[in-house]
């Protein structure tokens, strides 16, 4: 079948995009890999688990409730499809899986609001049970009312570090230490830009103050040396310029800010450009959400990390751009207001970047025995030997030779590490090291489902647009 407007993702960007489309009188399809809308930030627990919004979303409870109930109100006007994975993009159409059944959906305008995951840089022992991303530690709490612990170390950098530590503290979990990769001076550097959003800045200060009041030690400029333990983590060794130590713990949550989920934008043919500020390759997108591909719009953290509030703005703005391009009237005053709001978020984000540090000299400090790829257990040493023996200078070449980024996660967890190790081994920049190209299926797909796809009559003429079009609806 074909739908005019398709939104992928039902986080803040996807929900606000859908809202604008509904207000314009069209009925969008919203594809959501999750079982319930909300995305990661406003993730809703399974229906069997009832918890008040205040417990789930803390200081963001009012915002979360407002956004979730707004989307719920609009559901009669939206073709909302939860539990639906988009695993491939063909020109003008998406390949889906819903309840083990394959499907195909054509579109005229596609808004990708695919969100983000933690940016991970490995350290020896990071695959031990008990060690998760910061986002993972938060999901356990938000989605399952469970905590890792009872003694937890939170490490890495970025806003999530202090937020998750604060949330665990509020649940009575013993937060034994915070190991912040950013230097103490980073907060002062960040302050002027972050003053663009005083309320947000105040929340961050509140989390840190509460953690300090509870006596949680906070170490800055910290590097993670090694996690110890046999069947699960039992201690975490760390170091910074002036001190270090080994902390006994039962769990570790870590991450260095977020990285956008860009696989679908990549498969859609969007051009990418190197962003010097975040040292990442990002899909090109203008402030209205238009990508380099006609009819494809990018919104939310999937188009570059700006946070949840900015995601709402970008979702709404991308929807207006899509409507305009499809020849429908769209509110110019609203568009201008959204453009102005986005500039404020951008200013705040520029400040935040200083806080979202990665450990200085990470590549040089990472020992050869460190597993870099969780999926296929490829080590830093193997990658270095591969670079040395082959002369690989670009990460997709390294992928072809070593299988880094070829496993089940498709490079989501190992790409930042692989490109840094490659740059470290060759002396090239992260820009020159390149980015792992997205490949379908972007997430694991059962062979049995692909078999069913092959048996459906639409499978044969996939490459023939006319024939495929005839099978729509």
């Amino acid at each position, binding site marked *: 079948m074909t739908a005019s407007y398709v939104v992928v993702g039902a986080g803040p960007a996807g929900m606000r995009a859908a809202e604008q489309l509904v207000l314009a009188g069209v009925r969008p399809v919203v594809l959501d890999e*999750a079982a319930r809308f909300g995305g990661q930030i406003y993730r809703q*627990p399974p229906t069997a688990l009832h918890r008040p919004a205040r417990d789930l979303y803390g200081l963001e409870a009012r915002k979360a409730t407002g956004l979730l109930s707004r989307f719920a109100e609009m559901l009669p006007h939206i073709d909302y499809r939860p539990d639906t994975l988009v695993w491939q993009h063909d020109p003008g159409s998406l390949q889906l899986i819903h309840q083990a059944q394959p499907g195909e959906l054509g579109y005229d305008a596609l808004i990708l609001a695919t969100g983000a995951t933690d940016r991970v840089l490995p350290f020896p022992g990071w695959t031990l*049970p008990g060690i998760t991303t910061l986002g993972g530690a938060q999901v356990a709490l938000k989605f*399952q009312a469970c905590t890792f612990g009872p003694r937890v170390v939170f490490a890495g950098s970025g806003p999530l570090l202090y937020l998750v530590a604060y949330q665990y503290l509020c649940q009575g979990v013993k937060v034994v230490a915070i190991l912040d990769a950013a230097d103490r001076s980073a907060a002062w550097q960040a302050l002027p830009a972050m003053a663009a959003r005083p309320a947000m800045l105040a929340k961050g200060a509140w989390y840190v103050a509460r953690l300090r009041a509870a006596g949680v030690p906070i170490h800055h400029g910290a590097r993670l040396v090694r996690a110890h333990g046999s069947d699960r983590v039992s201690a975490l060794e760390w170091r910074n310029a002036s001190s270090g130590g080994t902390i006994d713990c039962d769990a570790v949550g870590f991450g260095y800010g977020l990285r956008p989920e860009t696989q679908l934008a990549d498969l859609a043919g969007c051009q990418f450009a190197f962003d010097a500020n975040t040292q990442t390759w990002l899909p090109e997108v203008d402030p209205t959400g238009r990508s380099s591909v006609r009819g494809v719009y990018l919104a939310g953290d999937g188009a570059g990390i700006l946070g949840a509030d900015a995601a709402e703005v970008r979702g709404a703005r991308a929807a207006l751009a899509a409507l305009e391009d499809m020849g429908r009237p769209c509110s110019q005053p609203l568009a201008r207001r959204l453009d102005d709001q986005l500039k404020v978020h951008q200013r705040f984000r520029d400040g935040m970047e200083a806080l979202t540090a990665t450990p200085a000299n990470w590549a040089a400090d990472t020992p050869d025995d460190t597993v870099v790829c*969780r999926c296929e*257990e490829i080590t830093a040493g193997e990658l270095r030997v591969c670079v040395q023996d082959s002369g690989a200078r670009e990460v997709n070449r390294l992928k072809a030779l070593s299988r880094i980024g070829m496993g089940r996660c498709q490079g989501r*967890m190992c790409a930042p590490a692989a490109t840094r190790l490659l740059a470290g081994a060759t002396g090239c920049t992260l820009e020159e090291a390149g980015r792992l190209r997205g490949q379908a299926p972007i997430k694991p797909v059962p062979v049995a489902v692909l078999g069913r796809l092959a048996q459906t009559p639409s499978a044969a003429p996939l490459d023939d647009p006319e024939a495929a079009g005839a099978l729509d609806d």
Partner: protein
Amino acid sequence: MTIDGRPCNALEGDTVLTAILTQGTRLCSADATGAPRAGFCLMGACQDCWVMMADGRRVRACTTLVQPDMELLTGATP
């Protein structure tokens, strides 16, 4: 439900990951070395929590809600 053949209970609304990790430390095993794993991102991105069931099917533990009579295998050697 059972975990490695051992009968046990879970709450409605628990993911397979929660059901297993509230009772033990190992969720599944790394493909190459068989080392213990226990999930990582919990949001369907890292794919490091696929759990085998006795009937041969595999489920992504962080996004699959536990169902009555599931027979889950963590790959632990008895």
